């Protein structure tokens, strides 16, 4: 059993004409929280979908637990997905099911456990995220933070090996942000999960990640533990960590020289 659960090798991916990733490599170590940071719009969510096999890369390998995800047959891919789970930004709770049924959904689909056993597991998972009392509510009745926690309970229902968080901190008030930071850390330690956190909330990520990749300009521009990263000499990494408005990533979207366009108007 190797130390690396997910190994991305020389990944290239493009959407139509637009290149998203070029020749990118990353490793995610078993039992650790690995974060991927970067400015918005560089396809961080795309990366998670590539790992989940929902998108197929142009070239490169994505090894998950020894199998190459892009090369898998449909049924083998579905087998592999049972060992991973993903927490979507919106939570992606099924709106027509109650919180309890949402968490029970993967259990009912993939196991033949009795209803009483399912009930036991669901209550356990809901207890872990602190929502045992909310089990009969519908997703529409939950606040954003609660919905994300309920989705987290559903994501860990089948005890996966890998859990991917897509922007878990986006749009949360400070309290629920604190709750989620704590949950990610605790679940990782208690269940021996491997976690991938995609985010651009620097402070929160730096506080929980064991290892951080900074992605920009179609590939990895900086990596290391949070301490190593703070000492990184790259101006791009520093700009991102400090949140400067202008710098290596320019404030202005690529355009013709401003003077030229103004002159054109005068003609």
């Amino acid at each position, binding site marked *: 059993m190797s130390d690396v659960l997910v190994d991305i090798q020389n990944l290239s991916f493009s959407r139509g004409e637009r290149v998203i990733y070029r020749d990118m490599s990353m490793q995610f170590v078993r039992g650790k929280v690995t974060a991927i940071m970067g400015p918005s719009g560089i396809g961080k969510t795309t990366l998670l979908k590539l790992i989940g096999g929902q998108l197929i890369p142009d070239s490169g390998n994505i090894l998950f637990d020894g199998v190459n995800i892009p090369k898998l047959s449909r049924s083998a891919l579905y087998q592999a997905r*049972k060992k991973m789970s993903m927490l*979507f930004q919106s939570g992606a709770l099924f709106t027509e099911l109650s919180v309890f049924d949402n968490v029970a959904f993967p259990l009912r689909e993939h196991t033949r456990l009795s209803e009483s056993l399912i009930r036991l597991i669901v209550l356990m998972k809901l207890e872990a995220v602190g929502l045992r009392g909310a089990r009969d509510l519908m997703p529409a009745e939950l606040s954003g933070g609660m919905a994300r926690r309920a989705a987290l309970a559903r994501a860990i229902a089948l005890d996966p090996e890998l859990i991917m968080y897509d922007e878990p901190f986006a749009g949360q008030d400070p309290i629920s942000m604190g709750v989620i930071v704590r949950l990610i850390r605790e679940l990782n330690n208690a269940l021996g999960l491997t976690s991938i956190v995609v985010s651009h909330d620097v402070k929160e990520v730096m506080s929980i990640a064991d290892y951080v990749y900074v992605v920009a300009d179609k590939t990895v521009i900086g990596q290391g533990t949070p301490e190593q990263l703070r000492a990184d000499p790259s101006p791009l990494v520093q700009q991102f960590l400090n949140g400067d408005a202008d710098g290596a990533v320019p404030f202005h979207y690529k355009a013709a020289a401003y003077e030229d366009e103004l002159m054109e108007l005068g003609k």
Partner: protein
Amino acid sequence: MIANRLQKIGHQTLSTISGFGRAGIMLFGAIVGKPDFRKGFPLFIKQLYVIGVLSLMIILVSGLFIGMVLSLQGYNVLVKFGAEGMLGPLVSLSLLRELGPVVTALLFAGRAGSALTAEIGLMKATEQLSGMEMMAVDPLRRIIAPRFWAGVVAMPLLALIFNAVGILGGHLVGVEWLGVDAGSYWSAMQANVDLYQDVLNGVIKSAVFALVVIWIALHKGFDAIPTSEGISRATTQTVVTASLAVLGFDFILTALMFGG
């Protein structure tokens, strides 16, 4: 200029064809393969409720009124020739052959079809479909297939109910109100209506319409751009495309069944 326009036409043709392709692949993925009755049947029943039972009210009411109007209008024409005895066949044949299947399909497209498109489009927009896929559950099997089968089963049943209610509505106006003899209403109907030629052909028609409408509705939802504007456009497209498709297929089927 002309080259530009040609390019645009070519582009549109290609995207239409690829739309057909995506719709076909979706349906293929949903209904081909080993069905799982243990999990599938409860979902099917649930959808039969949502698609069929909830459409019942509009079908009953419009069936009754269309039968009544047919009877009233038919009577006014027939009575000029002293042929009001033919009111029964007029009402029943119009309903069984044409109005029953067609109006049911149009109402169905508006009532159930648009709801399905919006539901699936929203599921896509809120990443529920994606989430399901990541949980190793195929959304084509879990979401599309039960809705497809429920629609295909529900519509012919709704059309039968529509026909029966319409003929009763015709009876109500023709016999009870306008005073056509009840015996001649029913016996002329019995002499002119054939079980296979008229009743069953109507059922076949509505089964074909069901397939077309439900397929369009599911595809438009599944293929919708996951924004609020995209979903509203997909919903509109479902109603428009499905209605036009129903009328087009109606002409083809009528020509095949009654044209020769």
